[in-house]
């Protein structure tokens, strides 16, 4: 898709971002969630270690990126599910829905990171 004849479009860029965020959530997000569960089940000391790592700059970066990917993938996934029913497939509606997803992602990510970090 990248080449001399390709013009960046919201539809294709959001499609590849959906994949990229899905990969990130699988490789980083899911293990983070599992770590939270195991740390909680292992007692206060293990949980303190978990909080210590999560509180470091790389831990906070991982959490922030996970939350961002989750909010985007969640909202854009709903956009995909609507398409799968055969609705909202014209360019104009797809672009409008794309903007709603992007704005929703920013709002939801900001709200979640505000309480989490």
């Amino acid at each position, binding site marked *: 898709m990248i080449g001399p004849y390709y013009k960046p479009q919201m539809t294709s860029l959001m499609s590849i971002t959906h994949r990229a965020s*899905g990969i990130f959530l699988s490789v980083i997000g899911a293990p983070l969630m599992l770590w939270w569960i195991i740390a909680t089940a292992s007692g206060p000391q293990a949980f303190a270690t978990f909080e210590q790592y999560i509180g470091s700059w790389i831990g906070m970066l991982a959490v922030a990126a996970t939350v961002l990917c989750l909010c985007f993938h*969640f909202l854009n996934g709903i956009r995909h*599910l609507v398409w799968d029913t055969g609705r909202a497939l014209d360019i104009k509606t797809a672009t409008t829905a794309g903007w709603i997803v992007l704005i929703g992602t920013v709002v939801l990510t900001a709200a*979640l990171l505000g309480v989490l970090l």
Partner: protein
Amino acid sequence: MSMINPIAKARGLGSAKEGVHHWYAQRASAVLLIFLMGWMIYSAFSLAGGGYEASRAFIANPFNAAFLSLLLVVVLYHAMLGLQVVIEDYVHQPAMEIILYFITRAGAYIMMALGIVHIMKLALGA
């Protein structure tokens, strides 16, 4: 001239005898995740800042434990299917494709098992 037998063409099935299962499973798990992940995101707001005790009390509740287990299984299943498509699309070396496919599946199943056992440990009050 088509080499496909007319009855096979009419049924629309190839040699695999199916084709929509993966597509359907990806969507069905996505719909379930709207509810399960929506519930988890909502819960995260009250868990944040509560430290160890908030997390322990949350998972120890049998209803939360059940839905958290369900979330973990469905989200990892969804991830496994999604990664499979990415591998099929971008990895064109058969050996590497099989290795990555195996790692993806093994990783998902191991994480499901680890997660459920640890959730149960809290839910059953051990």
